[in-house]
């Protein structure tokens, strides 16, 4: 749990005036981070905030919360909708590795904003909003990230790392092996050209009635090929049942690619975008394998993690559909 007095001290120091913290409520906990809603008050007004802290010691290749905060600051400077970073913890604060950001009003639960009538206008605008945010992100000069410890590598190297992760689970899923071979043959060997958000999908957006209010969860950001972000957004798993709309369950690919180019992004090669969609589907499959491995290894035993083991069949079906029909 979060030490509210330590949090109040950090916020007071940052503001240069007394800040009270009335409550800290856990919102969600992942394997690597924990998110809290913070009800703070300053000068008699409410100050709604979010605290995001590391849930466990950093694993190799994982971004610290301080690095994620820096990425959000850079993104904000370049016109992306992100929550403003308020404070980053220091080692003596007693709060671990974490940062505080503004709490953005809106809906973060994708099934709600994908289906709710109140969000119809937001959904209509969202493809353009996402394309614009990604085009702006991918246009940031790489020099701005030079002092951050970000992973990189060529697309083919990235794919080889994903394949090594797959093989480490010692499972035999023919559709996965088939797709890995197909993707590896088609991905390029070029050096990174952009910062890739790495987890830009319907579950990581805050949506208000006008559209995209904030892009969340920068912990998988890395240097790479911008087409990876476009492919990931179109993976079937992020459509939450709205499978007829390939862009996140709310839009069409042509509209996404056109808006991306209109916002200054590189023209999208349709064939490569499909390769990245297959790659993204494999990445989602790897997440399922990790989660069911948590249960089988005893790291986190739960009926939910065990059940995810059977979602792997969905991934196999999506991969086979992609390989036989070109797109899903």
């Amino acid at each position: 749990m979060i030490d509210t007095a330590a949090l109040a001290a950090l916020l007071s120091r940052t503001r240069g005036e007394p800040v009270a913290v009335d409550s800290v409520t856990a919102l969600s906990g992942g394997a690597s981070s924990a998110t809290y809603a913070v009800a703070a008050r300053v000068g008699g007004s409410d100050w709604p905030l979010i605290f995001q802290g590391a849930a466990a010691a950093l694993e190799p290749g994982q971004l610290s919360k301080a690095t994620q905060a820096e990425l959000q600051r850079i993104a904000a400077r370049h016109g992306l909708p992100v929550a403003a970073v308020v404070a980053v913890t220091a080692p003596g604060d007693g709060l671990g590795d974490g940062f505080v950001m503004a709490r953005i009003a809106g809906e973060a639960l994708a099934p709600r904003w994908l289906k709710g009538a109140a969000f119809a206008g937001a959904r209509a605008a969202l493809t353009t909003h996402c394309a614009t945010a990604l085009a702006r992100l991918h246009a940031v000069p790489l020099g701005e990230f030079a002092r951050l410890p970000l992973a990189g590598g060529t697309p083919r190297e990235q794919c080889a790392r994903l394949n090594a992760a797959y093989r480490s689970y010692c499972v035999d899923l023919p559709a996965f092996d088939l797709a890995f071979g197909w993707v590896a043959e088609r991905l390029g060997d070029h050096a990174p050209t952009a910062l890739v958000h790495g987890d830009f999908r319907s579950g990581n957006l805050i949506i208000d009635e006008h559209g995209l209010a904030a892009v969340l969860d920068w912990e998988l950001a890395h240097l790479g090929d911008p087409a990876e972000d476009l492919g990931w957004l179109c993976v079937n798993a992020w459509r939450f049942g709205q499978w007829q709309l390939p862009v996140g369950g709310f839009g069409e690919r042509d509209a996404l690619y056109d808006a991306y180019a209109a916002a200054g992004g590189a023209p999208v090669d349709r064939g490569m975008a499909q390769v990245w969609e297959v790659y993204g589907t494999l990445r989602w499959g790897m997440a399922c394998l990790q989660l069911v491995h948590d249960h089988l290894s005893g790291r986190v035993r739960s009926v939910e993690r065990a059940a995810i083991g059977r979602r792997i069949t969905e991934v196999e079906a999506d991969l086979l559909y992609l390989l036989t029909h070109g797109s899903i």
Partner: protein
Amino acid sequence: MAVPSASVLIEAVAAFLSEIETELTGRAAFHAKVAGNVLAVVVRELDQQPERAEAAAFARLLGPGATAADVCERLRDGRLTVATPGLLDALLAATTARLAVDNPRYSTLRRLRDTTP
């Protein structure tokens, strides 16, 4: 009357879970719902035995007794590729049989059935 089969017993447990789900909240309610879905998977697996369709598909591809591990080994060393006649058909047959058990409402199952000869 016969003594209850495994499927009947599991269905009874699933009915019990959905009864108590209304008395639960938060994580416990969510996990009770997931547990009910898991029991439905087990009942379908007992009824449909997808491993038979899977074994038949791999046998058509590689011969009697072939397993998923055999197929994977050949995909990894390049003896099988996406261009191998019968490979995609075999994988589609095996996967649709298992998906009909694991999540029969999944959109891609319907799409594969609508488009596979």
